[in-house]
């Protein structure tokens, strides 16, 4: 459904996109992960036809993204990463304008979404908080029930409750066989919804795999506090990567070998178990390293 084929757009020799390849099949949810400035939004701008690639091309439903961008919009819904609306409008008048520009008369889905996200549509947009604007953007992207959804960091600005509402919405659309591409800088957000994911770094795709194999390379560090020194000894002796960081406290790195980790824990008297929040580079450090070695 969405196809990116050798897409290259160099802003400078370091910044830009370089020979990007990936494909999202119909009914699939694709997570597009990368740190800030890696090229996620630039890729999406190409898909939306805002930018002309230097070489290569991208297509949606067989239509070229640069040449046929207006036709593509008929079947696509888009949520920009930066949310700025036209000035001097309320949420409702903005949504109405977009609907009219789409020549869409049905308002049932729109009202349903407004209800779901508990959005006060009468508020003038300039008085809205970031989260409220994000909701308006999400509704604008979903209300015409598009075949393809392109979402640039959809959950930024939403509170945890609304993030859950959003994730449910994505899962629902997935049931309806919609194709979705969403970008994020958080792996956890992608993990719950996506079938496959691509990791982009410095404009290059460093990983492009299904969710399962990504999970096996995902690194997690657990902080474990145990009761006795003997337990510590046991852990350090195990085949797992460990690091003693304090009195009877160890950091254990788990990467695909969850089973082994659980078995080890069952032999010890665990007092406290915690995971350390990590950024993307941390989680996929191994992945990045491996690629660099391969070069």
């Amino acid at each position: 459904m969405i196809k990116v084929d050798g897409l290259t757009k160099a802003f400078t020799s370091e910044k830009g996109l370089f020979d990007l390849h990936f494909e999202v099949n119909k009914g699939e949810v694709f997570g597009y992960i990368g740190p800030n400035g890696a090229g996620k939004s630039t890729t999406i701008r190409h898909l939306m036809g805002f930018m002309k690639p230097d070489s290569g091309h991208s297509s949606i439903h067989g239509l070229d993204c640069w040449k046929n961008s207006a036709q593509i919009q008929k079947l696509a819904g888009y949520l920009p990463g930066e949310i700025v609306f036209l000035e001097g409008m309320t949420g409702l008048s903005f949504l109405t304008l977009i609907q009219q520009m789409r020549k869409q008369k049905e308002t049932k889905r729109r009202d349903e979404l407004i209800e779901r996200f508990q959005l006060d549509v009468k508020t003038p947009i300039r008085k809205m908080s970031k989260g409220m604007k994000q909701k308006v953007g999400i509704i604008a992207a979903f209300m015409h029930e598009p075949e393809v959804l392109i979402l640039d960091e959809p959950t930024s600005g939403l509170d945890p409750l609304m993030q859950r509402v959003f994730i449910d919405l994505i899962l629902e659309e997935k049931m309806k066989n919609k194709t979705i591409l969403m970008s994020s800088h958080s792996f956890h957000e992608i993990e719950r919804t996506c079938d496959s994911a691509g990791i982009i770094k410095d404009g290059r795709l460093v990983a492009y795999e299904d969710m399962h194999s990504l999970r096996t390379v995902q690194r997690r560090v657990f902080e474990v506090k145990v009761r006795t020194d003997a337990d510590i000894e046991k852990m350090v002796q195990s085949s797992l990567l460990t690091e003693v960081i304090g009195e009877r406290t160890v950091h254990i790195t788990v990467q695909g070998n969850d089973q082994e980790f659980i078995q080890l824990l069952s032999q010890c008297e665990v007092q406290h178990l915690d995971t350390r929040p990590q950024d993307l580079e941390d989680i996929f450090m191994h992945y990045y390293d491996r690629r660099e070695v391969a070069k």
Partner: protein
Amino acid sequence: MSWPLYLSMMKSHAKMLGGFIYGAVAYIVLIIWIYPSIADMKGFNEMIAALPEGMRKLIGMENGINSLSDYIAGEFYGMLFLIILMVYVILTSTRLMARLVDQGSMAYLLATPNSRVKIASTQAAVLITGLACIVVFTTLSGIAASEWLISGYELDVRSFVKLNVLTFLIFSCVAAYCFLISSICNDEKKALGVSAGITLVFYMFNMAGKLSEKTEWLLNLSIFKLYDPIKMINNETDALLTGSILAVTTILLLAISIIVFKRRNLPL
């Protein structure tokens, strides 16, 4: 053209447009209203005649005040109206394109099944409609004021309307090059600066060109050379020729703007 966008844009520009119309209408009514007292003033023309020629040209009173038409053309069309329209055209053209691209709201408009050409044409239509509104209201109130507010002085309605049509066309042309700049720029401030800069240079050349014979050549570099209200209202210019040149230039410039906008990369 996308009608919903057109209407919504007109609505959000209504306040600003209203302000400009109000300013122009109030001033033309005022100036017509005080005309009798100036026309009856003895020695006014002698006083004007005593001024240096360049100065007279500059304030639009080369031959003194001989008729209501001369007076309106020189005092209003030659000075204040020019400035009102310049400001309107520069501000609005920047707001309609560069600002939306700069802020990012253009992304939403382009995320609907309307092509860039359609969106840009709509914005151009909004710009020209606004300009037409100001000129039409000014024309109507000029005619009304000279008809009802003062008595004993005739305004030649035909030439007055012709003057207004030409004024509209001149500023359509200014609007068109400002729109082109606005369509090229990613940065709103830059678009505003460049279009204001170019227009001011044209205006200054026009002023300097009128001051003395030595600087007269500067006039040829300014679009305002084609805009001489007093000659226009006295039917001393070839209105049809000037009008057609301006109309064609406007259409060309707008077409170029739309094509440029269609082809360029947008940082949305």
